């Protein structure tokens, strides 16, 4: 019982809005990273950061609204992120073998 009251106090000290604002800031940092960097590896890292901010938001809402389904969704987001990173890095290695660079501006054949 003591743990329950402790958790309630903890949740009252940090309102849900602060988690939302933290996740917004993290998502926008990830978006800036995608737009800013030319290195494909950095672009992938920024996408991982955006996925993480979404996960954190889902977990915060799940705890504040007493719903375990959101945490199952977070589990599936992690699964999809792992598969996406594995395929993306395999493509990156293939691109590097073909054009000897991971600069996204070198891959502009389909640009116009």
């Amino acid at each position, binding site marked *: 019982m003591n743990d329950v009251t402790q958790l309630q106090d903890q949740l009252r000290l940090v309102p849900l809005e602060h988690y939302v604002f933290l996740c917004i800031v993290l998502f926008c940092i990830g978006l800036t990273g995608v*737009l800013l960097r*030319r290195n494909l590896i950095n672009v992938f890292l920024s996408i991982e950061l955006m996925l993480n901010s979404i996960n954190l938001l889902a977990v915060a809402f799940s705890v504040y609204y007493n719903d375990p389904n959101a945490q199952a969704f977070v589990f599936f987001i992690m699964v999809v992120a792992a598969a996406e990173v594995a395929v993306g890095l395999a493509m990156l290695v293939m691109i590097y073998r073909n054009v000897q660079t991971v600069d996204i501006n070198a891959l502009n054949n389909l640009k116009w």
Partner: protein
Amino acid sequence: MTAILFYLLSAICIISSILMIFHKNAMYSVLFLLICFFSVAGLYVMLNAQFLAIVHIIVYAGAIMVLFLYVIMFLNMSTPITIRKSKLVMGIAVFTGSSLCFVLVTALWATNFGQNPAIVNQDIGLASTLGKVLFNEFLIPFEVSSVLFLSSMVGIVIFNKKEQKDE
């Protein structure tokens, strides 16, 4: 105390992610993102989601980041990419991100998310609760995700096999 811990972890997370997107060397970017992931795992523990915190560390810090480090070492990009984007494009990128952040924060500033929970379910983040949810309501997505992993594995093998055939 817990509020101070929350703000400390958030500050670590934001600062390391900003350093991550602005660092020239990809290796340092991966290590900064690792710091960010560990602080996010600390936030999960503070939210009483222990199972997801452990899974987060195992999957992200243990598998994905090792994969990134392995690829960076495999590509042997010791020299950072010297050609930078023009200042104009960098400024536009930073402006876009910060303006999206501004729009979202101002849109959600006055939103009422409801009162904090009166009754907190202590067991919501434990492995037993999540296991029951995962194997009852999410059984079909769970099985489909195994197919997803299998197909991604096959795809990776095909990528590398094709490459060898070309050479």
